[in-house]
């Protein structure tokens, strides 16, 4: 008897597989979307830069002051020179993004920043995805009061302005990049919980879960075999869109002085230095390049996420963008 149950469940499980196969138009849709492809290319490029920086750039060398090797606060070497600058490599590609007040090469710092952005972005989004998926599925699966308590809490969190909530949490946890990651994880979790709960409810409404339950499959199995695979697509879209947001917000908190330690080649902090010390003197390169890389990376994630949302739900293409 138990073997028969086994095959029965197997059959029902196959419908889950079919569902997944049906998701392949999603891929072809996505690949035919030029904007999404552009986004994917940007992300790929940035990850490559990040990995390169992690492997080949010595963090020490981009953190420390480098007096003597380069001119103090110099514009990009191909651009021109500053008055009073001790010209060394003017007219070459020695420091294509210029140098900052501590004579550090902004180019290598920006490259290393890509690694930090990708790394901390991934951790933040990963953690909030896991938390959100857990809470969302719990809410959908148990329903009733569990559902309501979880989701109302999520709603309240969601109604707080995200940057202000993150600031409040940083006030509790203290400053530092890791604390910022924790704070933002909590800020983003509700979004995932919402999306996952919605998707899980849709799956649960389908009869086959009921059928599986009637056949005696235990809770965790139902969740792992049926609910989770069917929620993957919306989770992926949400993660991608949130990745951009995470990178912006991490850098924002660093910009405000709550994130990375002084000297870290993190984009937000570099922008902060550029604004504080370079803006009024017109040293544009100082804030321009870190911000440019930041914006391009975020745009990449937004383009991809947007295209994914389209591919996922063709109806949305026309109504929501």
């Amino acid at each position: 008897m138990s073997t028969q149950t086994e095959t029965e469940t197997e059959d029902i499980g196959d419908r889950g597989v079919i569902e997944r196969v049906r998701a392949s138009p999603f891929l072809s849709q996505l690949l035919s979307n030029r904007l999404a492809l552009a986004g994917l290319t940007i992300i790929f490029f940035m990850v490559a830069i990040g990995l390169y920086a992690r492997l080949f750039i010595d963090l020490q060398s981009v953190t420390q002051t480098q007096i003597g090797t380069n001119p103090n606060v110099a514009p990009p070497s191909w651009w021109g020179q500053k008055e009073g600058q001790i010209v060394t490599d003017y007219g070459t590609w020695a420091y294509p993004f210029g140098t900052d007040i501590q004579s550090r090469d902004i180019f290598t710092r920006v490259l290393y920043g890509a690694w930090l952005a990708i790394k901390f972005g991934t951790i933040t989004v990963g953690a909030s995805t896991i938390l959100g998926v857990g809470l969302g599925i719990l809410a959908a699966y148990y329903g009733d009061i569990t559902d309501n308590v979880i989701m109302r809490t999520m709603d309240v969190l969601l109604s707080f302005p995200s940057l202000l909530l993150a600031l409040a949490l940083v006030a509790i946890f203290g400053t530092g990049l890791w604390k910022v990651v924790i704070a933002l994880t909590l800020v983003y979790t509700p979004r995932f919980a919402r999306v996952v709960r919605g998707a899980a409810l849709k799956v649960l409404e389908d009869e086959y879960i009921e059928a599986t339950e009637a056949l005696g499959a235990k809770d965790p199995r139902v969740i792992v075999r049926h609910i989770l695979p069917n929620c993957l697509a919306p989770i992926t879209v949400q993660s991608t869109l949130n990745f951009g947001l995470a990178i912006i917000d991490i850098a924002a908190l660093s910009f405000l002085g709550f994130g990375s330690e002084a000297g870290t080649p993190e984009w937000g902090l570099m922008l902060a230095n550029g604004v504080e010390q370079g803006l009024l003197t017109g040293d544009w390169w100082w804030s321009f390049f870190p911000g440019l890389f930041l914006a391009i990376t975020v745009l990449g994630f937004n383009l991809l996420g947007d295209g994914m949302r389209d591919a996922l739900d063709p109806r949305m293409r026309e109504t929501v963008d």
Partner: protein
Amino acid sequence: MISKRFVVKRLLLLIPVLFGVATFVFAILHLSPGDPARVIAGQRASEEFIQQIRVELGLNDPIWVQYGRFLMDAVQLDFGQSYQIRRNTPVKQVLRYKLPVTLEMAIYGQLFGILLGIPAGLLGAIKQDALSDHLTRIGALTGISVPIYWSGPLVILLFAQVLGWFPASGRIASEFDIQPITGMITFDTLVRGNFAAFESAAMHLLLPSLVIGIYSMALISRMMRSSMLEVIRQDYMRTARAKGQGSKITIMKHGFRNALIPVVTVIGIQFGTLLGGAVLTETVFGIAGIGTLLVQAIQVGDYPIVQGTVLTFAFLFTLVNLLVDVTYSYLDPRIEQ
């Protein structure tokens, strides 16, 4: 018509909201690791001195007593005195001086966002050929991808440094000495009839409010576009068009009103993002409003200021949502009043 009862009912809801935020802030400050007494006394103070301050501030009382006292004070809008930033000045006074600065910038920013976002969204919805569709889409996506702390420096560099059209930071040129009335400088200068000062203030305000505005414009235009598209597709609009009722413009007008409903509600929620943006914008443009105040207060551990600022932010946010709610019920007569 919007009934008075509806508005009063909504106003009464401010009480639990602020009570909730106050409790929330109280909890946060008691969970945070710093010791206020040590912050006030300074790192090198003697243990006795710190104890003395603890007694003075009532930090040695049981926490429920502190909570009760905190609530009683909050009801009277008394958040105590600043520990650090403006030593021994009542928080109320600091806020009264800084709030109008942020408020003014936020109002102009929101106006920019609405005035630019709604037409942009409408255009995207009505002109639906591939090119303009693509352009609005890329535009909106770029808008939300560019953080304020980058677009801010860029406009400063371009318009203030290179072109020299606008001042880079501050609120008004130093030669003007305007006695504050409301604290909102464009208003005060106008009331005082000092037009040269008004011009200077407006020039100072334009860049920061534009930077905030562009950010909220991205969201508003996206919402407007999708909402308008949805309305256009609805059956009654199709029928109206098929029957040839009225000109295209009348139909659009009718649709516009309906499409505006979800947009208006989002403006309320988005105002929170705008306040968050104000924190960043003030930092970039060197404007001393409550945004920079909050950041400073968290950095140095000036808890009374943190409490006061967060409550002020919450109050503003709720108030705007209240306004939105009233507008909403005006736009959508189906809402029970």
